[in-house]
């Protein structure tokens, strides 16, 4: 070998330096298949080479954590011998190219990550970001993505209970589709991917391998250029029916003691699954590629190893259990093939026609994966904007109607009514409020879950925005009455080779970490999606947080809608009227400028703990956290959902528009029939809680507004999205 030998023309996305490392590892020139394997394993998507350094700083521990990041999904104890297993993952690039199938296979992939660990999936969520509504592609993308998510989740029979949808021109050429799955497993039946032991059969199950999605992992790690449409054939078609069979078959086999290790074939298919199992188990693996079930003829070793055909799993079994396992998979009409064996060589060896076509030492393939300390520059701080410097509207009510009936804050019903959010019979709190609440089957316990991120805050101040994303997800879970347990995260950013983008990532991770620590909500899983750029223009930095919490008695859960007229409305938390970076400011001036609202994590925690206590004590009839659009929007949403009104009778000392639309953090609007109890509990906890008015029959009156018909508000709120989607 020699570094002076001519290099292949196409390094498959690897840098010259990375290629040199390969030469060192192998002591020879890699062949085409080997180069392909290095290329996908060292892609951004699989190796996290740009983000690893920073991800290591996140808090990942807690008494509740059974398994943090590093496995297919995070595992958290929920008591009674059960664990919740969850993760979020992006499928951004494929969904832009082919929205239906891209989004569908995104759901399929994250489901496999969760059930490969032994969990039965019980809920799905999805965080979506689209371009400007008036961009010519947006409508088609929204329609396709939503149909694809529904198409997969509905068919496999896992309820899709939550998520978020936002529009911003920065996503015009690069939408975000992040899918999250939450599952439940017995704590003594959790499966990992380490293939410990030699002489064990390596088994392939699920669908056959085709030429689909070859090099998807590297596609997900490349910037889009105008020729991206050429990359089309790499999109896969999802088969949720087969995934349902695979799920049931895997769970059936998992009930036995046959499985040593199991790993889904996701990005980089057979390559990453086999390398990961070998590396974690500290063994070698020899695969006989002739045994791999395939649906096309003439497939090369390279194609077999890099295919991202969906609905496949790799398992290592205890010797002698093959026949029993085969019987289960054949009952479910799935392919089952013993394709290799673990050994003590430490090598990944591929055989074709009995001869070796690739031979790579596993340890360095994994250990020498590049890790970059990319240069970064911190986002310069923005000035704090005074409320008095943001213009007051002619009419507060008109602004409320515009906001609540516009793309950013309108109802997402059009989306979640296309998702079966009730199948499995445990959805206690449906989509449309704060967190969804799913009962743990057969018990009175529940899991609350929410995904959140406010990218305009992250853009303005990545650290504050990172904190805010965690705080808002935590707040949403708290608002139904659950105790947040842990989070998963999906870091969606632009090109990390640009220092200002890298600075966004560094800042956001720092802020997230601080919030997770302060709120005792560690990170247990996540995903990074970089290079979300088209022709050099990046998306808003979008670190999506998925938070899961537990609630002992779902019967105590509180929802956001007003329940009856004549109840007292309180605001928990301090209202200062922060308008910088708010939706109000953007509505009035066309731009969100200045510093975003600061998140005081101690206050956040204190306020949330009080709300949770009040709910547990049965003191609240409704609860909604205050986020985008501030108090006016939160109150209006509660009124619309309940078909009731409110009479707010405070005379704020701050300007009325700042009181109504300021986005101060750490706040909740609650209703109660026992105002004294709420006031006393708040005073005792040292949390500001202010009675601001009463619920009423049918109109909403805010400080400085005329009475607004709630029916009218509802019509505006409900119509924007269906009207937009129906227009052509």
């Amino acid at each position, binding site marked *: 070998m020699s570094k002076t030998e001519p290099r292949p023309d196409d390094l498959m996305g690897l840098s010259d330096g990375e290629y040199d490392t390969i030469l060192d590892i192998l002591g020879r020139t890699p062949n085409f298949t080997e180069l392909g394997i290095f290329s996908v394993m060292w892609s951004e998507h699989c190796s996290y080479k740009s983000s690893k350094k920073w991800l290591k700083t996140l808090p990942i521990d807690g008494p509740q954590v059974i398994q943090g990041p590093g496995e297919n999904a995070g595992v958290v104890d929920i008591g009674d011998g059960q664990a919740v297993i969850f993760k979020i993952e992006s499928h951004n690039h494929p969904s832009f*190219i*082919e929205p239906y199938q891209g989004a569908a296979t995104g759901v399929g992939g994250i489901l496999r990550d969760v059930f490969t660990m032994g969990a039965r999936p019980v809920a799905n969520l999805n965080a979506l970001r689209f371009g400007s509504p008036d961009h010519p592609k947006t409508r088609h993308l929204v329609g396709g993505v939503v149909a694809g998510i529904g198409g997969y989740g509905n068919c496999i029979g896992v309820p899709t209970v939550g998520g978020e949808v936002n529009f911003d021109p920065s996503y015009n050429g690069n939408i975000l589709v992040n899918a999250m799955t939450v599952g439940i497993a017995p704590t003594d039946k959790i499966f990992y991917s380490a293939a410990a032991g030699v002489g064990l059969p390596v088994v392939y199950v699920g669908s056959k391998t*085709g*030429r*689909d999605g070859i090099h998807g992992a590297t596609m997900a790690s490349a910037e889009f250029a105008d020729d991206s449409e050429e990359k*089309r054939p790499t*999109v896969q*078609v999802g*088969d949720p029916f*087969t995934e349902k069979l695979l799920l049931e078959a895997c769970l059936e086999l998992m009930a036995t003691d046959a499985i040593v290790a199991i790993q889904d074939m996701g990005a980089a298919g057979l390559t990453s699954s086999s390398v990961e199992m070998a590396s974690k188990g500290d063994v070698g693996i020899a695969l006989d590629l002739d045994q791999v079930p395939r649906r096309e003829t003439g497939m090369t070793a390279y194609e077999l190893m890099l295919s991202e055909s969906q609905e496949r799993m790799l398992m290592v079994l205890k010797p002698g259990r093959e026949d029993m396992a085969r019987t289960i998979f054949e009952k479910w009409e799935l392919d089952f093939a013993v394709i290799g064996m673990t050994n003590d060589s430490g090598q990944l060896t591929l055989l074709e026609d009995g001869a070796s076509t690739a031979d790579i030492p596993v340890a360095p393939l994994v250990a020498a994966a590049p890790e970059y300390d990319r240069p970064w520059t911190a986002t310069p701080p923005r000035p704090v904007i005074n409320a008095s410097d943001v213009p007051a509207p002619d009419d507060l009510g008109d602004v409320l109607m515009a906001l609540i009936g516009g793309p950013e804050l309108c109802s997402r019903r059009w989306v979640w009514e296309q998702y079966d959010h009730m199948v499995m019979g445990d959805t206690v709190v449906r989509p449309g409020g704060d967190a969804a609440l799913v009962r743990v089957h057969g018990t009175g316990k529940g899991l609350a879950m929410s995904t959140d991120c406010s990218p305009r805050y992250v853009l303005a101040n990545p650290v504050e925005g990172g904190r805010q994303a965690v705080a808002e997800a935590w707040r949403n879970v708290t608002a139904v009455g659950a105790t947040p347990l842990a989070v998963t995260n999906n870091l969606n950013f632009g090109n990390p080779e640009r220092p200002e983008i890298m600075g966004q990532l560094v800042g956001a991770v720092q802020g997230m970490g601080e919030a997770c620590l302060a709120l005792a909500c560690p990170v247990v899983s996540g995903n990074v999606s970089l290079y979300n750029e088209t022709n050099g223009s990046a998306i808003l930095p979008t670190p999506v947080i998925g938070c899961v919490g537990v609630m002992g008695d779902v019967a105590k859960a509180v929802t956001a809608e007003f329940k009856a007229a004549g109840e007292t409305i309180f605001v928990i938390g301090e209202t200062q009227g922060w308008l910088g970076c708010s939706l109000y400011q953007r509505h009035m001036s066309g731009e969100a400028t200045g510093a975003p609202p600061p998140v005081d994590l101690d206050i956040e925690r204190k306020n949330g703990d009080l709300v949770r206590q009040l709910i547990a004590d049965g003191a609240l009839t409704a609860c909604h956290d205050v986020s985008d659009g501030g108090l006016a929007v939160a109150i209006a949403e509660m009124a619309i959902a309940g078909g009731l009104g409110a009479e707010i009778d405070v005379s704020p000392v701050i300007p009325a528009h700042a009181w109504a639309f300021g986005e101060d953090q750490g706040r909740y609007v609650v209703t109660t029939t026992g105002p004294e109890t709420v006031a006393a509990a708040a005073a005792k906890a040292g949390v500001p809680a202010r009675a601001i008015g009463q619920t009423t029959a049918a109109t909403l009156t805010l400080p400085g507004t005329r009475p607004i018909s709630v029916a009218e508000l509802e019509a505006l709120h409900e119509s924007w999205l269906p009207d937009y989607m129906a227009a052509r």
Partner: protein
Amino acid sequence: MKARIHITLKNGVLDPQGKAIQQALAGLAFDGVEDVRQGKFIEIELTESDADTARVQVSDMCEKLLANTVIENYDIEIVA
């Protein structure tokens, strides 16, 4: 004029429907079925009376709406 359009999955693209039909046929004891592929068949009645113009129009429809050219091929036949 009338256009008859066949929309089929590209080679190599997974066809879950075809696969499931094949298995169902086997279950019904139909032997000797080697492969099943399912596509769409769309018939469009057009006011246009010139075949060439109609074809151009219909291929535009296929590109813009009817076919998903990422994974599908289309084939147009114009009949009187």
